[in-house]
């Protein structure tokens, strides 16, 4: 292929499957569905704790039901990390979806081997400095409770291997977001795995496509109100040449905008050092990319440079971190903020009197500074600079056990009639049960340890 056309059809677990219709209609070689985030892995972990057949992104069948006719015709292949922490179960669901549509003869590949949980203990015993916290350097021995999840961020190679074996659909677990997009580019163009500049070009494209609408006007801080059809923001398409030159564009039928400005917002999203973006496949220099606005919602990207990949993968551990509850109460003028603050104190006092142990509190005053915190100017005495016309108190708390976390919220109920005036619990929630918190522990693992267990399994749907 001289030019490979790939599209980002999903930016998170819960994104809308209808978005892929416009992409498929444009004629794309690969539809990449990126379903995972650190938070998503935690959600899938809780899913799997309840039911061991779960742990994957369960909107996968909805996506596939739209894409499968194109896959069956040989027009488009699908690559997704919707396998989450249970890719085998996702593949079963995908095959069932195909059979239910009467589609057989297609090949589904499953990439396995990113799950390191059962090997952590032995590896840590062997080398006690292994799995130190990536940001704080704390030893794994100090993790507050045992890991429930250990997902290594694999690169593009197992996906490229699956494509070489004829896969029409590739389902993975925790493959790094941008690598999902690099894989078909490297495979189709025959890029070698030490062609750092081209691999980096593919990672830049992947990073710009992985968050779907966010590169074409979604979460855009420019003139967001002036984007065409803001109710129908597009999902991105990239046409990538063998030399790594890429043109980012969108389906003509949808709204939004493709410009250097919309794209640069995404370029630095969730990035630390932009000159050294660490992907499993290459260290990409995002500051080397040159952007050029072309006619008709197209931006050309050239000049991307890369340096050799490191010998480690990112590894994400999650551990139980207690239970949380939350409640909201709205207060009206006059003295809305003061009523909210008094209610916060009264709740805390009542909880204390009831003998309920709270390990951590969070009080937010919506309408005053719930989001801006200390960046919002206050008067010298700590009062809001301007009296707000209304204020919502949001209280959240963390307890060691589920039952206590549930009981704390109940202390708010009598305040309906016995607290500062005109609080309305109807504006929010207080009745929901406690939710489990998961701490996350990012660390590194040597590639060779993980690669030894990575395998690609291919099955034909019959």
């Amino acid at each position, binding site marked *: 292929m001289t030019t490979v056309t790939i599209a980002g059809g999903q930016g998170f677990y819960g994104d809308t499957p209808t978005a892929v219709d416009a992409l498929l209609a444009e004629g794309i070689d690969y539809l990449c569905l990126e379903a995972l*985030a*650190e*938070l998503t892995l*935690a*959600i899938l972990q809780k899913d799997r704790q309840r039911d061991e057949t779960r742990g994957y992104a369960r909107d996968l069948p909805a996506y596939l039901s739209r894409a499968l006719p194109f896959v069956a015709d040989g027009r488009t292949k699908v690559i997704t990390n919707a396998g989450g922490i249970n890719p085998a179960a996702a593949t079963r669901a995908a095959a069932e979806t195909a059979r239910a549509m009467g589609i057989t003869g297609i090949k589904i590949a499953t990439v396995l081997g990113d799950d390191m949980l059962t090997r952590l203990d032995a590896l840590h015993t062997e080398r006690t400095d292994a799995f130190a916290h*990536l*940001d704080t350097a704390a030893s794994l021995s100090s993790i507050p409770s045992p890991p429930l999840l250990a997902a290594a961020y694999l690169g593009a190679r197992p996906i490229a291997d699956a494509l070489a074996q004829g896969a029409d659909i590739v389902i993975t677990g925790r493959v790094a977001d941008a690598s999902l997009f690099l894989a078909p580019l490297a495979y189709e163009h025959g890029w070698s795995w030490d062609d750092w500049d081209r691999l980096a070009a593919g990672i830049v494209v992947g990073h710009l496509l992985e968050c779907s609408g966010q590169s074409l006007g979604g*979460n*855009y*801080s*420019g*003139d*967001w*109100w*002036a984007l065409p059809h803001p109710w129908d923001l597009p999902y991105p398409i990239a046409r990538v040449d063998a030399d790594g030159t890429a043109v980012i564009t969108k389906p003509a039928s949808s709204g939004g905008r493709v410009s*250097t*400005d919309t794209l*640069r*917002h*995404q*370029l*630095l*999203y*969730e*990035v*630390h*050092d*932009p*000159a050294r973006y660490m992907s499993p496949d290459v260290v990409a220099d*995002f*500051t*080397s*990319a*040159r*952007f050029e606005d072309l006619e008709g919602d197209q931006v050309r990207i050239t000049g991307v440079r890369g340096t050799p990949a490191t010998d480690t993968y990112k590894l994400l551990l*999650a551990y139980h*971190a207690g239970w*949380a509850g*939350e409640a909201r109460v709205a207060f009206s003028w006059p003295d809305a903020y003061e009523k909210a603050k008094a209610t916060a104190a009264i709740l805390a006092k009542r909880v204390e009197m009831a003998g309920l142990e709270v390990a*951590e*509190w*969070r009080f*937010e005053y919506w309408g005053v500074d*719930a*989001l*801006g*915190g*200390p*960046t*919002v100017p206050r008067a010298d005495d700590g009062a809001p600079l301007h009296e707000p016309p209304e204020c919502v108190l*949001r209280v*959240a*708390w*963390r307890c060691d056990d589920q039952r206590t976390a549930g009981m704390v919220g109940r202390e708010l109920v009598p305040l309906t009639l016995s607290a500062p005036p005109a609080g309305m619990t109807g504006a929010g929630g207080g009745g929901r049960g406690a939710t489990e*918190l*998961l*701490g*996350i*522990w*990012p660390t590194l693992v040597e590639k060779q340890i993980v690669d030894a267990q990575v395998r690609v399994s291919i099955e034909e749907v019959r």
Partner: protein
Amino acid sequence: MPRLPLRELCGYRAGDKADIANVAIFADDDDTYALIVREVTAERVKAHFGAMVRGRVDRYEAPNVRALNFVMHDALGGGGPRTLRADNLGKTLGGALVRLEIEVPESMAQRRRARPELAWADEILNRLPQT
């Protein structure tokens, strides 16, 4: 020297990784980029966020897109699945950063970024049955 909030000079976007938040700000021209490189230091950003950001703030430059990227450690109350904050992923920290005021030359003192125009939203909303 006149002062302006970064809101009038820059675009912004925030993201998260574990308990680290990053906020990038984007200048529209070379003069503005040179100005923010000079004025918006990591120390100043750290002070602006106060108790909200407990750890250090690192600054990176991306001159190809006229951007500065601030990486703020221990900034999300423990990270997405652990934090008690409503804004569990720190998505609003970009807006919080562009509230920061910096000194600007006289020639830039009148700079304003455009404000939202929502005639299209009124059109949609006004035709709905509302109470």
